[in-house]
């Protein structure tokens, strides 16, 4: 596998807080890697380190085999970064924002016009080119921020929670754009709290407390779930959850309008028939289900904490 970007044993502290500890991750060329972790896990620190916005305490980052710290001036034009906080000028128009970011990367004149057209084509922002950035909807703002990060045609794209607070349709459109960029060979690292987005990525890395919990393709990660999972279609009253949890060997938690039960992998749900039926529940209403990425992520996190 050709790894475009290698993060080797990187650590970074802020005073007494260890934001990242001995963290390693490889980003394969032309793939989307999703970065998933709770608030404070170290996601933003990682993005900032890669973009050389802050210094690392130890470790190294190689981009196309080149050491990032030593040869940053050469590497910088290849990187595009979209920070979590809306980074555009609210009182400049869509086009003025594009022009401003183009100027930073020395994209002028005809080159600008050509690139702006390309970016409008995928963002569908052309009809709104004269509108001030602050008057755009949430989804459009994020598309504009992405366009600005892409102005200089970077080979690597780092996106820090670009779709948080964005509605499902706009999120879907945003990801269509990311998938197109990926197909054109751009290497992408994107952090997200949405597991459906993780499922669309090529690879994902779970991060917690500044350390890597797990990484792999979405399918590989799904299979890390230990145990068997069942859905019980019943009103999830708190007293019922408590009673089920009192049965040795069963873990019960609310899930939507019903309950999730989990047992050990080598166990059999039949063992619990009597206990479950004693609570007045219909044993036939219990159906085995596949663990999803979120179940897996939560289990990995709980095992650590």
């Amino acid at each position, binding site marked *: 596998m050709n790894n475009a970007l290698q993060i080797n044993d990187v650590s970074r502290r802020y005073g007494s807080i260890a934001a990242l500890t001995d963290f390693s991750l490889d980003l394969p060329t032309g793939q989307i890697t999703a970065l998933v972790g709770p*608030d404070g896990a170290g996601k933003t620190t990682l993005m900032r380190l890669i973009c050389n916005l802050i210094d690392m305490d130890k470790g190294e980052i190689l981009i196309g085999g080149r050491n990032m710290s030593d040869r940053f001036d050469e590497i910088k034009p290849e990187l595009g970064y979209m920070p979590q906080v809306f980074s555009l000028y609210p009182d400049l128009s869509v086009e003025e924002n594009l022009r401003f970011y183009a100027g930073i990367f020395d994209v002028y004149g005809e080159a600008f016009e050509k690139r702006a057209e390309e970016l409008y084509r995928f963002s569908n922002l052309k009809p709104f080119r004269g509108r001030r950035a602050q008057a755009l909807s949430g989804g459009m703002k994020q598309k504009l921020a992405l366009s600005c990060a892409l102005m200089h045609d970077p080979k690597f794209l780092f996106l820090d929670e670009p779709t948080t607070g964005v509605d499902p349709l706009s999120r879907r459109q945003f990801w269509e754009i990311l998938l197109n960029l990926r197909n054109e060979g751009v290497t992408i690292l994107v952090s997200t*709290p949405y597991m459906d987005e993780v499922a669309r990525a090529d690879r994902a890395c779970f991060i917690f407390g500044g350390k890597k919990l797990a990484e792999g393709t979405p399918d590989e990660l799904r299979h890390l779930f230990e145990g068997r999972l069942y859905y019980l279609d019943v009103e999830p009253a708190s007293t019922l959850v408590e009673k089920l949890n009192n049965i040795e060997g069963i873990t019960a938690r*609310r899930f939507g309008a019903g309950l999730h039960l989990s047992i050990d992998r080598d166990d059999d749900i039949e063992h619990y028939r009597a206990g479950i039926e004693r609570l007045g529940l219909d044993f036939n209403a219990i159906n085995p289900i596949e663990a999803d990425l979120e179940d897996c992520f939560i289990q990995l996190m709980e095992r650590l904490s």
Partner: protein
Amino acid sequence: MNNAVEVVNLTRRFGDFTAVDNISLTVAKGEIFGFLGANGAGKTTAIRMLCGLLMPTSGNGRVAGCDIIKESERIKSRIGYMSQKFSLYGDLTGRENMDFYGAAYGMSRKEVKQRRDELAARLHLEDILDRQPVSLPIGWRQRLALAVSLLHRPEIIFLDEPTGGVDPVFRRKFWSILYDLAEEGVTVFVTTHYMDEAEYCGRISIMHCGKIVELGKPFDLIAKYKAPNLETMFIDLIDSRGGECAKD
């Protein structure tokens, strides 16, 4: 009356722009109601009318037993409100924030203290009560904001994207708290962009360009649109209506 929200033909215009277009809605006491829609569909404007913060151009109704037009001040003492954006004073501690909001709701010091301790225990906030919200992860901040919105024992709470940017573990715990509240009879009126959370709601409505275009139980809507899940159902529905509503 057993309904927490009962509004008929609510409309709100801003100049030529109709932000909310003739919506009618009934939410039962103790229900968890998901109020969904694309960005810019009019959800926040509708919620502001239900909370007595904005007068409708036309239409009427009752929230928490109060007339939304004639008793808009009284509504505020009977509801709780929390949003992803508005929140607590970042440089007051959690405890100070609760004292401040308790006083703003006209509660006595003794009442505030009692209720604060009760909510802190229930939402497991004991360890963070003396920290400033700015120093806390979003998940904890949101839980603290929920506690503040519950101080004055509201009959109904309006939560505007309460879990935006919150990680899955915290989101599940947050929803577990919402279920407990609903079991006790508190009505939960919530907006979210997470479709897995929307599936947790008893009923949902979907807004598009100011109108409520669907209303029902999540699984019934999924079945009606023959979709594999709510996310696909939502996208298909909004897409078939021309996508995001641009104000132009």
